[in-house]
């Protein structure tokens, strides 16, 4: 590979690592595994860099690879909260205490979604991808994306109750 392409790749990693790591964290709920997923994605991106840099948007391709790596990989899955702790929090979905407990609650709810449903929810709501973009990225039909989106929302509401109780208070100045 041309040295300047290698430098381009380095600059790309520098600029994309933060967001991709957060995306992977939304998917797997663990920073270590998130970084493993992102590293695997970068390995794949680098092998195709000479093509990606000329044709595709590198960010879009890297995002696709992160999500595919998450769905493909089962080997290093681990999460950092016990089932007991998560179950205890789940008993009080409408009245969590403390920011850490809220985050654990949200992580637990996401973790209970099937991986593909979790990926759809993350892409549609956190990555702001359209139905068509989500379908293309995950290799499924738009109809499947819509049904998984609906199912994911239903499961989140069943798990968490009224979502608004988990959101930070904001002051309306009107």
């Amino acid at each position, binding site marked *: 590979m041309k040295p300047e392409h290698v430098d381009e790749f380095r600059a790309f990693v520098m600029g994309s690592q933060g967001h991709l790591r957060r995306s992977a964290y939304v998917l797997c709920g663990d920073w270590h595994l998130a*970084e493993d997923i992102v590293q695997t994605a970068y390995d794949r991106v680098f092998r195709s860099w000479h093509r990606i840099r000329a044709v595709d948007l590198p960010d879009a391709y890297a995002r696709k690879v992160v999500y595919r790596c998450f769905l493909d990989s089962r080997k*290093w899955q681990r999460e950092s909260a016990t089932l007991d702790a998560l179950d205890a929090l789940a008993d009080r979905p409408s009245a969590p205490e403390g920011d850490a407990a809220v985050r654990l609650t949200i992580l637990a709810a996401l973790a209970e979604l099937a991986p593909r449903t979790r990926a759809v929810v993350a892409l549609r709501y956190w990555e702001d991808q359209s139905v068509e973009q989500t379908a293309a990225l995950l290799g499924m039909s738009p109809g499947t994306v819509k049904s998984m989106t609906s199912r994911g929302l239903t499961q989140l509401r069943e798990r968490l109750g009224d979502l608004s109780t988990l959101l930070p208070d904001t002051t309306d100045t009107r």
Partner: protein
Amino acid sequence: MTHTPDNPDLAVRALIDRLFDDVEPPHRGGMADVSISHGATTARRHGYTVAGAAACVLAIAAGAVVVANPSGGTGEDWTLGPNPGTSAPVSAYEDPGPTYADKVREIDAELPRLLTPLLPPGTTVRYDSTRRGAVSQLTGDVLPDFLLHTSAGDAVLQIDSATTDYEGAFAVSPATTPLPVEGGSIRARTLPSATAGGFSTWFEYKPTDTSKPPIHLLIYGSSKAADSPLDTEAFRRLADAPGFTALATLLNPATPASTATVRQRHQLEDRIATETAGVLPPGFRLKLSPAAPATLELIGPNGVNTFQWDGSPNSTDCRTATLCYRPEIDGVTFRSVDPDGKPRMGVYEYTPTGAKAPAGTVYLTVAGKPGVGAYTNPSNLGRPDSEPAPQGPGLTPQQARAILGSPGVAQVIRQVNTLISS
């Protein structure tokens, strides 16, 4: 007045955003270089070396032409000229004593031997060079990791991972209380994955002697939590075993690498010197970087530079028998460079006469001393306090051309890169 989004899209988005309310752990450093290193390994397995070897034969045959006509037929004078002399002996910049990189290599080499006997029967640990530990962009520290194998499968062992919250793990209710062991106390906690499969286990050994640092280990894998290679009782036995003292000494950063490890490094550097004797100009020598493992430095008359070289299978920018140059970071395309005698840091590229680009193209990079920081080039990443020598000015075009145009240089490059990666 509380105002929350009515739109479920916004509500879910805001919900996920809450995951990042807290300060994120520091980023794992060196991700780009890890991918680049993995890519180079893949390229070698896929046969680029075979193509390079064929081109090398042509380069050797054509090399006589280059030597006989130092101007390369362009009328320019590419001869090196008289030895510029040295401001200080080359040996002044070498590392006779143990370095930080020696310590990292020693941990990689010795931990499996010291730890395996302390593990439960049937559990082994090994170092995998393809998983070479990440380098922190904040400190230049290398965070080594290893592979644990048990009947339940493989798991990863990390030493004192800077990106994991040990105290947070021990604080998960019910909080982990210390258990007394020989010479100190331990804490151990396994937290299973909330979905099917997967676990993490955090360990801490805290010596009673507060002058010695604690030892932190993290093990994670995809099998059930009950199959974790080490439970609390196994870790207690490990910490109480007579062999644990040697392991603790190995992991103590205040303990320098042994003379045996330093001697191995000197022997490796001597082999590199033998390999490169016909390639480097007078007054130059390669050594292993003291700041990071598997990294070279070029020692020159006036200091040291981080150094890399390799074949460039996809490079087509440079015409054959033309030396090209670009600055390391600017990302501009290669331009031919005249033999102006001005030393530079950056990337030089060359395709010898008779060789065919890109298979026969070779390049080298000379850069600054090892450093840290968010904007440090990953190729320079390393402990900055580990290299006391002054920074060299780089290479002149004549010096770079003498290296890259040497007969058989492609094979020398492959051999040296193999030596430092082993």
